[in-house]
Each structure stands twice: as C-alpha cells, then as structure tokens.
C-alpha cells in the first residue's frame, strides 16, 4: 500500500470516513438531527467532489485489484447521488416513525461504499467482499423499521435468499478462480482468452459460469431469480425501497460490467444466449405481473424487474458485438435511478404520516388534491413508460437501438422489448388515471413534505427532464465510461 494507492481509492476512503463521522456526531451530540443530516449530506458532497477530482484520470491501485477509470467515476457519482437522495427522502419518513436517523444514514453510507468499491474493483475477491459490503447493510435497511412486521419479514426473506445467492455466486467464483488461477480481472481475461481460442470450455468452467451467472442474476433481480424483490420492496420503509430499487440494482450491473464484460469478455459468445433468455424472461414476466398489482410499491417492484430486463438487452447487445450496448446500460442505469427514485419518493411523500398504505386507491384524485405532487408523479411514471421526451424514452431507445444494430437474435429481442414497453404503459398509466380520473376516497390533507424532501424531488424531476431533453450531456459521460477494460 502506498500513498498513491490511497489517492486512487480516495472516494471510498472518504465515504467510510463519512459513515464514521455520522456515528461520531451521533455519539457526541445526541438528539441533534440537524447535525447528523448536515454531516451526512455535507460528507457526501465532499465525496462527490473527491470523485469529480478523479474524473478523466486513470490508474490502478493495490497491484491491480482496484482500477480507476471513467466507468468508476461515472458509477461512483451515481452511487453518491443515490445515497444523498435516499437521505433527502428518508428524513421525512424515518423521523415521524421514531426511527434513528444516525444509524439510517451510517448504514446507508456503508452500503454505498460497497457499491463504489464494486464500481472500481478489478479483482474477484475484492468484488465479492465489496458486494457483501453493499448487500449486508441493505438487509439491515430493509428491516430498518424493526417494529414493523412487514419490514422485518421483507428483510429476513431478502437476507435468506440473498445469502443463498451469495453462496451460489461464491461457489461459481471459486471454480472460475481454480481454473484461471488468478483473481485479477486482467489475469482472468488473459486465461479465458486462451480458453476461448482453444475452442470448447471445460465442464468445470461452465458450471462455475452457471453459478456465477445465477448469483449475479439474483442480485439484479432477473427472472427466475427475482422472487425476493416484491416482498423486500413492499415491506421496507418506502424511502429505503427507493434505495433498494436502484442502489443494489445498479451495483449488480456494475458487477456485471466488471465481471462479465471485464473478466469474462473473451467468453461473451458463450454467455450471450443466457443473457438473451434472461432478458426476454425478465422483461416479459416483470411486466405481466406488474399489470395485476393493486399496491403501487409492489407494482413498482415488478416494474423494476422489467427494467432489469431492458438493461439486460443492452448487455446482450454488447455480447452480440455492439460496443454501444455498454453506454446504453450506463445511460439506462442513470436514467432509471432518477425516475424510479422519484416515483418511490412520491409514494413516500404520501406515506409521510404513518398509517397511509401504498394501495393504488391512495393515489385517487392526487392530481387535484396536490397538483405538484401529482404532476411530479406523472412525469416519473411517463418517463418509466418511455414516453418521449423524458429520460426513460432515451434509455429504452438506446438499449433497443444497440440490440438492433447487433442484429441476429438480438433484433427479435429488441422487438420483444418494444412490445413490452408498449404493454408497460397500462400499469403506469393506471396510476395516472387514478391520480387524474378518480375521486379521492377520503379527503386527505395535502402532504406537505419538508424542504429536504422537496429538494430531492426537484433534483430527480429536473434530471428526468434533462436526461430527456438534453440526453447528449449524459450520453457523453456514458460513452466515455463505456470504454474500459473489456
């Protein structure tokens, strides 16, 4: 370890320090929520600055275990944004329920630290450890409302299935390591390039790939490894659901980028069919089940599964030889992050007072009761639907276009994605219909969210619009970030 190594992983170090600072502030100044929130947001701001200072630089640290490139910077920025937004949305929800802010913020920052490590890790062991650092705090967050039976139930399901899948992933990693003889991504790539050149792959390696793919598919909630999603999302406190629906998901795709695109790049012809099948199953099933949901949180959970499917189309496009698939994945990840967090945040705003359910009936007449909140929700939902000119449209357009360019079976996949995007309109617009075409069941007072919350909503909304109207800005970043290792 040297000072330059530390400089390379500076964002991660800074992030750990932020978590520590939150806990110290909590100990030193108990019951000072402003101090805690200020520490968390300010700290994340500093982390963001540290990341931005790294922009454009490349390098590797710890003997190649961690590498800094445009991809790392891009993903780190998304993760920091996710953490900051979660805190902005969380405060209004966590406080009225008597849950501690400090633990919430600290655990969240730990989780995001794990995600940031994934973004930069080019070593299988580091990747696994970073993954665990991301998901273990996630389990705690899912069960954060520890007196709420739903929250703990969702959390324990998430934990049990998550640990199960971690074991499966680890088993696969062990075999890939045993065959390639190294944990470094470049070493694995080199070894596998020889394997790919040699023709067929050995059964042991095939099994390792299978276990690894299953583990990663679980983390990104691809069908048929998606079962944990609806329960975990529905049970969790809503701002935490917002986090869970984007943080671990983008993290899982970061793993996919480092592991499949990076390490397993030479074998991409072999994992391409698997990704195609997964993508087709995931978007179709996610959409079909989402149509019949009456609970908006659960509906958004299934829709997030469908979005995984669309992102997988981008991965398939890459494996099919279309490099632009990578920037499409990144664009989708960023756009999805903001629009999906926004949608969950509106649900959270309605649930600000304890006892309000996320049933679709809660949204009846929202457009009149609270025009601002209704309009924001409409923007997020239309963006998730993929209506131009909002972020979701370009996200879908990019992955689909990349798949079309790749040709072959991927054209069929692209058409399936379009059909799915068309079908998805039903359940998103159903909420819009409830907001604008139903009388409110009871005259709920407009929920006037706090300042922090409004800032968060404003940021997500503006980004959703900016990504739609000026996609070139984001596309420039994703194009730069899409050029890495593999």
């Amino acid at each position: 370890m040297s000072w330059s190594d530390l400089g390379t992983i500076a964002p991660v170090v800074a992030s750990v320090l932020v978590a520590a600072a939150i806990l110290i502030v909590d100990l030193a100044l108990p019951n000072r929520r402003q101090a805690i929130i200020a520490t968390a947001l300010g700290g994340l701001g500093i982390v963001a600055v540290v990341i931005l200072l790294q922009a454009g630089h490349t390098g590797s640290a710890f003997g190649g275990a961690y590498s800094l490139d445009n991809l790392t910077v891009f993903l780190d920025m998304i993760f920091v944004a996710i953490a900051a937004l979660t805190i902005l949305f969380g405060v209004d929800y966590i406080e009225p329920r008597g849950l501690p802010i400090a633990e919430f913020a600290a655990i969240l920052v730990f989780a995001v630290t794990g995600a940031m490590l994934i973004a930069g890790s080019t070593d299988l062991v580091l990747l696994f450890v970073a993954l665990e650092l991301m998901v273990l705090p996630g389990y705690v967050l899912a069960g954060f409302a520890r007196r709420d039976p739903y929250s703990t139930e969702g959390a324990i399901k998430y934990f049990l299935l998550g640990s199960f899948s971690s074991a499966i992933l680890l088993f696969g990693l062990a075999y890939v390591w045993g065959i390639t003889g190294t944990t470094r991504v470049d070493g694995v790539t080199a070894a596998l390039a020889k394997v790919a050149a040699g023709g067929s792959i050995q059964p042991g390696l095939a099994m390792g790939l299978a276990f690894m793919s299953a583990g990663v598919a679980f983390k990104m909630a691809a069908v048929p490894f998606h079962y944990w999603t609806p329960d975990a999302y529905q049970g969790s406190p809503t701002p935490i659901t917002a986090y869970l629906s984007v943080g671990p998901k983008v993290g899982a795709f970061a793993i996919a980028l480092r592991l499949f695109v990076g390490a397993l790049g030479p074998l991409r012809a072999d994992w391409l069919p698997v990704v195609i099948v997964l993508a087709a199953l995931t978007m179709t099933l996610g959409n079909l089940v989402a149509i019949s949901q009456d609970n908006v949180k659960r509906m958004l959970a299934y829709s997030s599964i469908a979005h995984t499917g669309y992102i997988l189309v981008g991965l398939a496009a890459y494996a099919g030889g279309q490099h632009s698939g990578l920037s499409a994945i990144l664009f989708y990840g960023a756009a999805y992050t903001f629009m999906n967090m926004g949608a969950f945040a509106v649900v959270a705003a309605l649930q600000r007072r304890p006892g309000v359910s996320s049933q679709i009936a809660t949204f009846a007449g929202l457009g009149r009761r609270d025009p601002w909140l209704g309009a924001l929700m409409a923007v997020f939902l239309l963006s998730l639907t993929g209506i131009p000119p909002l972020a979701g449209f370009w996200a879908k357009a990019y992955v689909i276009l990349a798949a079309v360019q790749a040709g072959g079976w991927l054209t069929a996949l692209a058409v399936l994605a379009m059909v799915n995007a068309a079908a998805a309109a039903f359940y998103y617009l159903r909420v819009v219909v409830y907001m604008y075409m139903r009388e409110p069941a009871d005259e709920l007072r407009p929920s006037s969210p706090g300042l922090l919350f409004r800032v968060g909503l404003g940021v997500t909304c503006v980004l959703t619009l900016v990504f739609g109207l000026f996609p070139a800005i984001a596309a420039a970043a994703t194009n730069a970030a899409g050029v890495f290792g593999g």
Partner: protein
Amino acid sequence: MTYLIPLIPLLPLAGFVVTGLLGRQMGRESHQIAVWAVVASWLVAMVVAFAALAHGFGIGDGAGITLWNWIPALGFKAEMGFYVDALTGCLLIVVTTIGMLVHIYSIGYMAHDPGKWRFFAYLNLFMFSMLLLVLADNFLLVFAGWELVGLCSYLLIGFWYPRRSAAEAAKKAFLVNRVGDMGFALAIMAIWTQLGTLNMQAVFKLVEGGGLSSTWVAVVALLLFCGAVGKSAQFPLHVWLPDAMEGPTPVSALIHAATMVNAGVYLVARCNPIFGAAPGVMVVVAAIGIFTAILAASIAFTQTDIKRVLAYSTLSQLGYMFASLGVGAWTAAIFHLMSHGFFKGLLFLGSGSVIHAVGDEQDMRKMGGLARKIPITYVTMLIGSVAIAGVPPLAGFFSKDEILGGAFKSGFLWVWAIGFVVAGMTAFYMFRLMGMTFWGPSHVDPEVEQHIHESPLTMTRPLILLALPAVFLGLLIGYPPESGLLHQWLAPVFEATIAAGGRTEAAYSFLGIDGGLAIVTTLLVVTAIVAAWRLFGVDMPAIGLHAEPRPDRVREVSARRGLDFLYRGSSAKWWFDDLNNLLFVVWGGRLAGAVWWFDRVVIDGTVNGIGTVTTQAGLGLRRVQTGHVQNYALGIAIGLIAMAIGYFLIAVR
C-alpha cells in the same frame, strides 16, 4: 421569421404548465391563461403559415430551425428542431384556428364543470403535442408528438371518468392506438438502421436518391401506414373512434374530428417521397381508405346517437383522404383535410350546442323540430351539412370533387366508383341527422322542452366563425379546380413525387371529363338530399308517436317485416326503417350484419381478448409469488439448475 416557429408550440405548453399547477386556485377564471396562450399561438402560427404558403419571409420552400442537437450519441443524430413548409402551413392553419375556436367554445360548454381547469390544461397540452407533431423536423420528434396526442386523447376521452363507458372508451382508444404506434416505432427503427438519420428532409433526399432498396421502402411505408391507420382510425383499427365520443363534445370536435385524427393523413402526405417510391403500398393505402369510407358510411346510416353519426362520418371522410393519398392526389387529400377540419369541427360543435340545448340528450330519436328553437345552431349546422354533402359551391364540393376526379383520372376506377357511392350516402345520412334533429315533430321530453334555449355567445360565435370557411374555403383556395391557390402553395411539396411517379397532373377541363364527373356527383348528392328531406323533413304529427324512441335496429326491423309494409308511407319513422330494411335486409343486410359482427365480435373481441389474456397471465404468475421463502428458493434452485444445464449445452457445442 424562423425564430418565431418555436413559439407556436411553446405558448400552449406554458399555458398547460401554469393551468395544470395553479388552475385550481384560479377558480372560475381558470380558463383565461389557457385560452390566451392558444390565441397567441394562433396569431404567431398565422404569420408563419402564410409566410410559408406565400413562399416568402425567409421560409420559401421550407425552412427549419434547430433548437439544439438532441442527441449526438451512438452514431446517431437527432435534432430538436422544427421545419415549416407549405404543408406544415396548411396544417398550422387548421390546427390552431380550430383549436382556438374550440378553446373559446369550451369556456361556455364547460362553464359549470368543476374540473374546468383540468380540462383546459389538457386541451393546452394537446395543442402543444399536436403542434409538435406537425412542426417536428425529424421522425423521433414526430413520434414524441404522436405519443403525446395519444395520451391527451386518453385523458380527455376519460375526462368524465365516473361514467364507466368513458373510462372503457379511453382504455380502448389507448390500446388500439398502441398497436398503430408500434408500427410507427418499428418504421423509425427501420429508417434509422437503413439510413442512419432521422431528419425527415434528409431521409426523403436519400429515398429519392435511391438510398433505400425497394423492399425496405415498401416495409418502411407499410409500417408508417400502420401508425397512420391507428391514429386516423382506419379499418381495421377504426373501432376506437366512435367510442371516443364519450369525451366532452369540444374534445370530439378538436381531437377526434379536426386535428389528431388527421395526423395519419399528414404523416403519409409528409412522407410522400417514401410512399411515392412504393407503388404497391399506395394501392394498399387507397384500398384501406376507400373501404373505410364505405364501411363507415354504411354504419352511419343506422346510428341514432348524434355524435356517433358524426364519428362514423369522420371515419368515412378520413377514408376519402387516404384514398386520395393512395391514388396520388396528394393536394386533394390535404385540401379535403382542411375543408373537412372546418366543417366537421363546426358540425361537432353544433351537435354539442344541440346536446347542451336538450339537456345532455344525445339520442336523435328524442330530438326533432329543434330548428326554430335554436336557430343559430341550426343554420350553421345546415351549412356544415351542405358543405360535407358536397353541394357546390361550398368547401366540401371542391375537395371531394378533386378526390373523385383524381381517382378517376389516375385510373383507379374502382376507387372512384366506391367514392361516388359514398358521396351519395354521405349526403343522405347527414340530412337524416339534420332531419331527425331539427325537422319534423318534436320528440323531446316535454319537461326538457320548456328549457330549450340557444347556447351562449361563447359557443355560438365559434360556430359562425367556422361556418365561414365551410362556405368560402373551397372558392378561396380550391378554385379554379386543380390550379387554385392551394395547388400553387403545395406544388413544391409534392411535385418531385408526382414527377417521379411518371404522371403529370392532367389539366382540368370543365367541358371534358372533370365537368362531367362533377355534374354527375352533384346530381347524386342532390338526389340523396332530397330523399332524406322527404323522409325526415315532412311534418307528421297525426300518428302521435312523439317522444317515443324509434326502434331501428336491423334485427328488430327484420322481425317486423310484415308490419313495415302496412305503415309504409304513413310515418317518417317507418320510411326510415323501411329504407333500412331495403338497404340492409334486402341487399345490404347481410353485409351490414357482417360488418357489425366483425366490428363487435372479431375486432372488439380481439382488443378485449388481449387485455383479458394478459391480465389472466399476470394473475397466474402472481400466484407463484406465494410469500414462502422456500418456494422462492426452490425457484432459484431450479433456475440455477436450468442455467447449469444451459451452460453445459453451450460448452459441448
């Protein structure tokens, strides 16, 4: 001049945002901003449109403005830009003028509706979307407008959502439109993969230069036409439009008669270089168009809901436009689009005024004798009916005559023949509507009858203003035929395609074939009007069948076959049913029955079936989510095994 263009869509957008967010607080005045935004937009649009039509003020044969480079990534270029030429100018005139008048009309129509601000916000959003669609310079932006008008239509059809039928109709409209939209989206994708650009002018240049193989041209043209068929409600995607009449009447006038449904016609006309290069597809366009024309006209015969008659009439007239496009009479199609926009908007607004007068009754069997009670509405609607029927020298005469003449002269005799019949049918059912509504004895509920009153000025003034173009538009821009103003305006848009098609537009000769056709058509139309007047115009109070709904379903009629001959000639009611009998039971009965069956069972059934199947599949899949962790884990384990087997298969490949 071009810097004015972005203002046209942005003003209504600003109106939408302000009204949508603050409308509720504005209370009774919530319409002000929305209406003024559209009026301002209209002013700008008029300046731009006439600049474009006069080929002057820096617009010439077409000029664009690029706001910003929308997306330069993925080797893929699309600009956020607008393009105006003479075709756009024509559409601008129709859309903004009718849009503005409908806004003004709605002030009165929606005055007492608690959701007025919402209504005006949606109307503004619609205006923005429609203008975006018309002005866009690339396919992607057109698609954005295309999707947004669909969304607005959905919101507005379902505006009176407590009515179950309204919600159902909105859903149906959305569903059917998505089918067409898929075609459009696929077309865009095909264009992009084949040509690498989505800028319309660039695409047209490439197509004209032979940059696209003939197969791809045909594929793209067909897919584009799919989109047009959905939005313009052509067979077999026509089923949503009649149901869409559940929306408030100004919406029907604006969206479902005068503007949005024209989007398909506009798209085909705009893409004339693509369609011109695919003669096979042109025949399809003509066939679908003329078939929809006669199908819808035949259905309009039996409808009793005043708005539904107008809805089927709209389908029929849109069919005319597509037929015209299909035979290569591009200008005639746009001409008919414009004249139809005005008189159909007038007729819908007039019907709204009628419905308003008789206490929200839409069944024509419970109307009658309204002519004297609501004279302004009556006179203006009469003008509209004469115009749509095609009596010279009103607008409809010139545009319809041009379409029929175009079909005849370009050798599509079958299109002409069907179109000729439809012209007669149109005149008949329109005057049946007029007769049942305004003439003869009153069948209005006596209680309602006392309150019948003419609509307020905000509602009648738009009617009068719309009646003017319905009368004069033809003379103004369509005379002399085939060399009038409109032809001069639109010549640069279509001349290349027409020249490439190898046909020169034959000169108009009144003393030759053209005059002959016009005279024959006019004779037919006049005969049909006289027949309708005889059937519905005769006052017949003696039988005392006031206010009793007349059964006129085909099935009921055929059951009373013996009876109807007894009453023949004694009552307008039975004249009509006898006519139905003659038309539908004797020689058209089975066809009409089949049409209805096809409509209600096959197409509706398919539409509803898709919904049911997906919902059921969703419910079935939902059952997998049992809530038991072990069941989930077993699912994961099975997935893992499947994946392992999959990889083994790949490995031994």
